[in-house]
C-alpha cells in the first residue's frame, strides 16, 4: 500500500471511530433540548455539513486560482474532487434541513434564509459539475472550471447576504439553531472535525480517480496517434 493510501485509510479510520463515539454521545448520552425535543440533534449533522462543504469549496477556490497561474492539471483534479465532495455535503445539509423542517413545522421546505441560500449554492456548484461533464478537452475543462469556481465562490457571500435581507422583508418559518449550551459544544465541534476528516478522505479518493482518468485520456490519445 502506498503512503497516500495509508494516509487515506488513517483519515477515514480515525474519522469513523470518532464518529461512532460521538454518535453514541449524541444519541444516547445528551438530554433532549427543551423546545424542539429529540430532533434538535440533527443540528450536529446539519451545520457541520455546511461548514465542511464551504471549507472544501474554499480549498477548490485556492486550487482553481493556482491552476490559472501555473496550469498544473493536478490542481484542476483537486478542485474538481473538492467541489464534488463539497456538493455532497451541501446536499446533506439540505436534506437534514428538510427533515428538520418537516418535524418542526410540518412542511418539507421552508424558505428559511440559510436553507434558501444553501439551495442556490447547491445549484451553482451542481452547475459546475454538469459543466465539467460537457467538456472533453482536459485543458479547456480545467480552465473553464477554474474560472467558474472563482465566480461561484465570489457569489456565495453575496447570495447569503441578499437572501437574509429578502427574508427579513418576507419572513417565513426559520430553523432556529440558537446558541450552543456548553455540553453541546464538544460533540458539535467534534462532529465538524469528524466530517472534515471523512471529507478529506473521500476527496483524496476522488482525486485518485481524477489522476487515473487523466492518465487514461493521455494513453488513449497516444494509442490513436500511433494507430493512425
Amino acid at each position, binding site marked *: 500500500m502506498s503512503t497516500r493510501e495509508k494516509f487515506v485509510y488513517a483519515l477515514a479510520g480515525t474519522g469513523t471511530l470518532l464518529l461512532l463515539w460521538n454518535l453514541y454521545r449524541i444519541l444516547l448520552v445528551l438530554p433532549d433540548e427543551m423546545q424542539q425535543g429529540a430532533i434538535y440533534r440533527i443540528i450536529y449533522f446539519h451545520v457541520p455539513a455546511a461548514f465542511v462543504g464551504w471549507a472544501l469549496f474554499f480549498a477548490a477556490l485556492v486550487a482553481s486560482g493556482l491552476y*490559472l497561474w501555473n496550469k498544473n492539471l493536478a490542481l484542476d483534479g483537486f478542485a474538481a474532487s473538492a467541489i464534488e465532495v463539497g456538493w455532497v455535503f451541501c446536499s446533506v445539509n439540505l436534506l437534514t434541513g428538510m427533515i428538520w423542517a418537516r418535524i418542526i413545522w410540518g412542511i418539507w421546505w421552508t424558505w428559511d434564509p440559510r436553507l434558501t441560500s444553501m439551495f*442556490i449554492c447547491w*445549484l*451553482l456548484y451542481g*452547475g459546475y459539475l*454538469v*459543466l465539467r461533464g*460537457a*467538456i472533453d478537452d482536459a*485543458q*479547456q475543462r480545467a*480552465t*473553464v472550471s*477554474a*474560472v*467558474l469556481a*472563482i*465566480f*461561484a465562490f*465570489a*457569489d456565495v457571500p*453575496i*447570495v447569503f*447576504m*441578499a*437572501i437574509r*435581507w*429578502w427574508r427579513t*422583508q418576507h419572513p417565513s418559518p426559520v430553523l432556529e439553531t440558537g446558541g450552543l449550551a456548553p455540553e453541546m459544544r464538544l460533540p458539535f465541534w467534534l462532529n465538524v472535525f469528524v466530517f472534515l476528516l471523512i471529507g478529506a478522505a473521500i476527496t483524496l479518493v476522488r482525486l485518485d480517480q481524477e489522476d487515473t482518468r487523466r492518465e487514461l485520456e493521455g494513453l488513449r490519445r497516444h494509442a490513436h496517434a500511433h494507430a493512425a
Partner: protein
Amino acid sequence: MRGVWTIARKDLQSELRSKEAINASVSFALVILLIFSFAFEPTADETRAISGGLLWIAFAFAGALILNRSFARELQNDCLDAVVASPVSGWELFLGKAIASFLLLLGVELICLPVFSIFYGVNLTKAFWPLLLVLVLGTWALTSLGVTFAALTVNIRLRELMLPLLLYPALSPALMASMTLTTSLLTTGTFAANDQPWFRLLVGFDIIFTTLALMLIEFVLVL
C-alpha cells in the same frame, strides 16, 4: 479602448441588420407577460405588489436569447480565432460584447415596458427616471455575467442549456435587488426606506463581477 467600440459596433450592426434575436426576445417577453396574466389577476393590487418580479422574470428569460447569440455568432467560420489573433485584448472583446448585448436587451426592455403598463394598469410616468436607473443597473448585471458565462460555454456541447443553468443561480442576488427596487417604484413611485441596501447590493454586484470578468476573461479565450 477603441477595440471595445469596434467590437460593440460590429455586434450591434450584425444584430440590427437581421433583428433575429431582438424579435425573438421581444416576442418571448410579451408571451411571458401574457401567460402571467392568466396566473395572476392583472389589475389587482396583489399583482402590483409582484409586478417587479414579473417584469424581471420576463427580462431574464428573454435576455438569455440575446446572450446566447453573443458568442455563438463568433463560432461560425471560426471568427473567434480571427478576432483573438488580432491585437484586441480579451477585456476589450468582453467589454465590447457586453455593451452590445446590454444595449440590445435594454432596447427590448424599453419596448416591453409600455406594453406591461397597459396590460397591468401600472403607471410608469411617476417614477420613470429612477426606474430607468434600476433597469440599467439590473440589465448590466444580467449582460455582464451572461456574456462571461457565454464565453465560458462557447465551445461546449449543450451550450444553450448550460448558459441559463449556470447564469440564473449566480444572478439571483442581482435579480432579487432589481425586483425589489422595481416593485417599490411601480407601487409607490419612490424607493422605500429599506431599499437602500438593495441598491448598494446591485451596484456592488455589478462592480465585483465586472471586475472579475475583466481579470479572468483572457484565460478563457487563450488556452
